[in-house]
């Protein structure tokens, strides 16, 4: 029987089989941020195991609350900062150099096809966009990852989602993944990997693929995976050109992690991508998705563009095109959080930041605290936010707040209109 992508990656990283259906795999990367790592660090210290398996394979960033908002978050930052210094972890991105973990780590070239990656963050599945196996874990798994460089995972079962044909103009990766989650439901891919295939996926940039894989966990998936191709190689080329004589050689090497033709899937979901239209969530689960046209006129108090889902340069370009030369509606607060310093610099260079500021947006430093109600854009009770983030859970952006998840294009159009509306109206 053929192997899926995740099975091939597990085969190449297997350390042990501690029981039926479980494998211990070695880790190529352990990513860390300041919310879930400090407790792991403190625990390792308290049990006399303040060590790291490999400081070169551990990457760390302060991203959720940056700069610190109070003494508790300052302590979290300090714990992470001191630990990276103590153990010679060179790739630590502190205030000023920091960005949203799932945007900055790929941008730095830390993710490669075939890698195994864990992080104490459920949206770690984002990195599967590069053909890697990347999974969110809790603090204890993170702790063992830091100490031993291994993690226990159940034998991967895989759902294949095939997006046939092309996305229509005005329809984006975010619409596609919300559409897919509605099909799968929030429990539809639990304990499974999703391979995203088909023409519409191969036509996406790495940014678009990261948006898709980012939300795989919202269907319960362990990881979302896209197949490495020339788009992947082009994105990585400046980091890998010393390793391969040519891009073709790199692609040939990475093709070892493509699924076999006779790989076994628990389900194959085929979707005609040309039928997907702009969508947004309603209520409190990410599978509660409706076409934007049915939500036309829904009032919002705040618009948020940013996060590990949609804070990358391509997202800012799309949104800036819509707000350029216009003003946000009276009574609306609009917030833009570029995901990394590089995204911010590039947006400045292209004049996008000016477009947003001229329109009335508040432009923040790269950080992601608004998404989970920790900082920089928290909602008051009863308020509604049109957001490019990934979770619309009750109270997620602030107690009593309500979130409609949508693409940057729809969010930008909503900021201008003052209510949810289709971005195509602003062309």
């Amino acid at each position: 029987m053929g192997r899926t992508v995740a099975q091939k990656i597990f085969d190449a990283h297997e350390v042990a089989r501690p029981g039926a259906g479980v494998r211990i795999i070695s880790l190529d990367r352990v990513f860390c941020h300041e919310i879930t790592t400090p407790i792991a660090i403190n625990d390792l210290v308290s049990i006399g195991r303040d060590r790291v398996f490999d400081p070169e394979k551990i990457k760390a960033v302060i991203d959720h609350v940056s700069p610190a908002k109070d003494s508790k978050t300052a302590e979290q930052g300090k714990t992470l900062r001191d630990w990276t210094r103590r153990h010679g972890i060179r790739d630590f991105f502190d205030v000023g150099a920091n960005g949203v973990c799932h945007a900055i780590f790929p941008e730095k070239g830390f993710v490669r096809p075939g890698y195994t990656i864990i992080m104490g963050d459920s949206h770690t599945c984002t990195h599967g966009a590069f053909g890697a196996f990347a999974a969110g874990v809790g603090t204890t798994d993170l702790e063992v990852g830091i100490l031993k460089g291994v993690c226990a995972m159940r034998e991967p079962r895989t759902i294949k989602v095939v997006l046939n044909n092309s996305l229509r103009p005005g329809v984006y990766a975010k619409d596609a993944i919300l559409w897919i989650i509605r099909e799968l439901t929030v429990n539809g891919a639990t304990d499974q990997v999703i391979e995203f295939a088909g023409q519409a996926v191969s036509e996406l940039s790495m940014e678009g693929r990261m948006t898709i894989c980012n939300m795989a966990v919202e269907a319960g998936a362990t990881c979302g995976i896209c197949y490495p191709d020339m788009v992947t190689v082009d994105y990585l080329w400046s980091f890998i050109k010393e390793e391969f004589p040519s891009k073709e050689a790199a692609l040939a090497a990475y093709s070892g992690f493509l699924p076999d033709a006779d790989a076994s899937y628990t389900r194959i979901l085929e979707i005609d991508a040309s039928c997907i239209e702009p969508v947004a969530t309603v209520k409190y689960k990410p599978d509660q998705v409706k076409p934007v046209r049915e939500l036309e006129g829904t009032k919002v108090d705040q618009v948020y563009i940013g996060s590990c889902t949609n804070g990358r340069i391509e997202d800012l370009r799309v949104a800036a095109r819509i707000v350029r030369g216009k003003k946000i509606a009276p009574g609306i607060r609009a917030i833009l959080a570029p995901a990394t310093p590089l995204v911010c610099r590039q947006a400045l260079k292209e004049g996008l930041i000016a477009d947003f500021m001229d329109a009335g947006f508040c432009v923040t430093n790269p950080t992601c605290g608004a998404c989970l109600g920790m900082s920089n854009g928290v909602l008051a009770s009863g308020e509604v936010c049109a957001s490019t983030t990934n979770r619309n859970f009750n109270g997620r952006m602030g107690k009593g707040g309500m979130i409609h998840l949508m693409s940057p294009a729809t969010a930008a159009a909503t900021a201008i209109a003052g209510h949810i509306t289709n971005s195509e109206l602003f062309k």
Partner: protein
Amino acid sequence: MKNFNGKILFLDRSDINTDEIIPAKYLTESTKAALKPYCLEDLILEGFDPKRDLAGKSVVVTRANFGCGSSREHAPWALECNGIDLVIAENFARIFRQNMFNCGMLAISLDKEKIDALFREFSKEDASLEMDLDNKKFTVSGGGKKAVFDFEIGDFDLDLVKAGGWVSYADARF
């Protein structure tokens, strides 16, 4: 090993997420005990009052996909520091389930018919559970009724519970 016996809290809803179990604004706390007052404070469930309903409970019985969403281990910790070390559900979000076992807690999946039976027979009673981990079964009693349920648990998961969690298990082997 932890003690898995005691009074049952029934939460009659699917897809109860980690933000409902413990909101993100409390993730800046540096001890488990600090989470205790906030457990389930944002749960959407009619008639549920966390302070009143959590008191004295040791077991949660709920529906499908419990613990979906965030990777935060604060979710099992918030339950643990309220005395709840066992959750029984149709199924669990992967990270939440692994976090439970990694902490030496128990996450038991039962098929829908058994979960339905638990709710039907015992959710209106002052029900309690007695665990027999060695024989992979538990007994629920309440309102003059008594029922025994078999369950399955993987060898590795059981080893984690007996070892007291993943850190001590892994440290001894890898």
